């Protein structure tokens, strides 16, 4: 393509070709849909290649015009090299690496997919000489805030939270190492807990629990949590992709401010009512020490190579995980336009449009 379209989202032009790993995942589907939607501000007319694990995943993207799929597993180094060669990746290609696992079948998946997979993608991207790679990281390499009023600043020391955090930290390190070595232009975004359309089934459970007034609230629900609506996250990713920031840069991408758990619960309940769903008030009050117990149990299970999603989520719910996006705003012009109530209402409408029962 002779003239690459320019974007209002950053100084770099829209790439001639975009490759998305984990394209059939929650975020991957969101990106594929928004980048190809002519009514969206994130629309790009250039082709998109979604890398997926198998034909079932490919089927999830089949209806999206402008997206072609390639099958390739990030845990297989040669498969990644081949996939990027097949996709004809080169200096006018950007690669958005969303593939990752948060609730694994086996604990070893964390290391294999989040760390090993990222190393493979970094290596393939460097070899293909892509223009830029955007790595989707997480809050998890930085753990929990030490105090309820503490907020993670733009730069923080690593303190990975359990197996997931460790694997995401190693993923970041693979990216940083390649940038330092000068073999790749990559940047990173660090979203906390995200929500919104294309959500997996576990989020449906969340909506139901909150609606029934049975969501566990530790110590009065005063813990603070940063969250990010998926479209805000897409904005952060695209702005990071098109920015002229130096390789190795990383930014928090979250909603405008952190919410207290009590606020999250009451907002979801308000969103349910606004969308015509029944909702009870409040949550189940649980003493703070139960969260401590869940963290200890999670730690113990993970030490023995086991992962239990419910225990993990329960443990995390007792903690504050809050991040400060002021540098993201200043450096990328990032502006999270959708707040919790609006985001949750859109999520509920998305579920309802697909006939998903939210109780």
């Amino acid at each position, binding site marked *: 393509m002779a003239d690459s379209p320019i974007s209002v989202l950053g100084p770099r032009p829209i790439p001639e070709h975009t490759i998305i790993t984990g394209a059939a995942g929650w975020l991957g589907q969101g990106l594929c849909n928004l980048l190809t939607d002519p009514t969206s501000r994130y629309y790009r007319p250039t082709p998109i290649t979604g890398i997926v694990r198998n034909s079932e995943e490919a089927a999830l993207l089949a209806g999206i015009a402008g997206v072609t799929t390639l099958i390739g597993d990030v845990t297989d180094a040669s498969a990644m090299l081949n996939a990027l060669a097949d996709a004809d990746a080169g200096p006018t290609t950007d690669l958005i690496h969303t593939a990752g696992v948060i609730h694994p079948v086996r604990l070893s998946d964390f290391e294999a997919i989040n760390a090993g997979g990222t190393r493979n993608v970094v290596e393939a991207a460097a070899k293909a000489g892509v223009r830029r790679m955007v790595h989707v990281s997480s809050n998890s390499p930085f753990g929990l*805030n*030490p*105090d309820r009023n503490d907020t993670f*600043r733009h*730069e923080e*020391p*690593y*303190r990975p939270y359990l197996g997931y955090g460790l694997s995401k930290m190693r993923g970041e390190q693979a990216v940083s190492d390649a940038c330092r070595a000068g073999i790749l232009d990559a940047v990173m975004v660090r979203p906390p807990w995200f929500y919104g359309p294309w959500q997996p089934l576990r989020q449906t459970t969340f909506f139901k629990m909150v609606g029934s007034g049975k969501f566990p609230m530790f110590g009065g629900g005063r813990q603070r949590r940063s969250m990010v609506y998926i479209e805000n996250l897409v904005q952060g990713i695209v702005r990071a992709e098109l920015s002229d920031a130096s390789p190795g840069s990383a930014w928090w991408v979250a909603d405008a401010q952190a919410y207290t758990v009590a606020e999250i619960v009451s907002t979801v309940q308000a969103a349910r009512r606004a969308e015509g769903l029944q909702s009870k008030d409040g949550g189940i009050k649980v003493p703070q020490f139960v969260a401590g117990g869940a963290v200890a149990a999670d730690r113990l299970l993970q030490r023995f190579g086991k992962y239990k999603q419910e225990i993990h989520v329960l443990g995390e719910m007792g903690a504050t995980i809050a991040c400060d996006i002021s540098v993201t705003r200043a450096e990328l012009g990032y502006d999270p336009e959708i707040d919790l109530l609006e985001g949750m209402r859109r999520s509920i409408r998305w579920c309802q449009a697909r006939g998903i029962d939210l109780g």
Partner: protein
Amino acid sequence: MSAANANRPRASESRGDGVRRRSPGEDRNADRSLDCEILIVGSGAGGSTTATVLAEAGFDVLIAEEGAWVDQGSVIPFSLAQMDSQYRSGGVTVALGAPSIAYTEGRCAGGGTEVNSGLYRRPPGEVIDRWRSQYQIRDLDPAELDSIADEVEKELSVCLTPGTPSEPSRILRDGAEALGWQNSEIPRWMTYPEGTTGFRGERQSMTRTYLPRAMAAGARLVTGLTIDRLITSNGRATSATARQDGRPVTVRFRHVIVCGGAIQTPALLQRSGIRKHIGRSLAVHPTVKLAARFDHEVNVPDDVPVHQVKEFAPALSFGGSASNPGLVALSLSDSWRDFAPAVEAWPSISVYYAAITSEGRGVVQAVPGMRDPIVTYRLTRRDKDLLRSGLARLALLMLAAGAQEVYPSFRGAPIVRNRGDLATLQERFAAAKASVMTVHLCSTVPLGEDRSRCGADSYGRVHGYPNVFVNDASLLPDAPGVNPQGSVMALAIRNARHFARTERPRG
């Protein structure tokens, strides 16, 4: 006292002032005695200001100081010799707990003001407001304290250092700037003779400011005089039993104002049978340290950095510590096996601290037959998390400032060379393995009308004892999150003025 030394009384001259001396034939065992209208116990930031206000208001004031008079400049700051001569127990005192917390107390004329970092912070307005509402402190007015702070700052010549900051200070500033963290130079009570740099300031401690002023107004300072206990009768204190040179001394007074600091003040009151809400709520700023090595000489052995990083305040603050070779070695000693080789590089090393505002509290308990009270302190889970996070964030700042290697002060700590090592630091850290220390001790006799937890009323009068007062760091309801000497002085002056307004000097 001659005019020439009016401002700089020597220990030998001031000691014994007012003590009724024995004539050659007198019985050696006969009690010596002192009489005064107001006995002030301790000559630190609280005692010296109190003495000045009351002596200038016409009261007959006697200041009992356990330590000696040591001229500023006669001992190298932050040295072992200073610990020996100007600190209690040679600077080695410990609050028991898991971890135990080492603390230091000045013991000399001028108290802690003679030996501390000299960094000055006004009492923060929001802290004053919180204290007033939570502890029901009557008429605690931030505007009044601000205007007192103006006077104190003038009296102590509080100012910024002239010229460029020292290398350890610049490192704090530049590391914080690189991370976008808020930082500033903290002013000090120092004067800088014409043409000198920031390294050679003259500390305007109590022995150079308020103590000479109090004495010029007639206050008597007796050094080497240890007050053992107050004798009370029907809720009034009438006299104190004391010792000087191992001999008993009786001090008779109309009012007593205890200003011995947050450990000695409650201990004296407890020994005197005054126990209600005394010594039960010790608050400190627990502190952890690290040493950082750079690729050039940075060490300044006889001064501390003037910059502080307040990005995470009040919960967390970072600053620089005294870093003479002995203290560098001490900070490396927790992991000596791995860190020992670094000590050779001490000229390239400086020591820094991360301090937290703690949710934990401690207890000061006087024990019969023991000279010093037993002090215990319990850190909460959140305190320990904050110490870990603080140490890691401080190490990150050091890397951002260009440190080659960072040596955190806890057993089993890794040498931090890059950001990946910060994860190891946090994984290995446990507060119980760290050398936790503090220099800011307060809140053992919190003031206020909330009788369920305050040991003294809104002006420092001990509840239930109309002529027994406290006027030092013990009164601060909790740790203020900043260097506390400014808060102690402002509050002490406010309370002393209230005393002078409500009590008349004896004719």
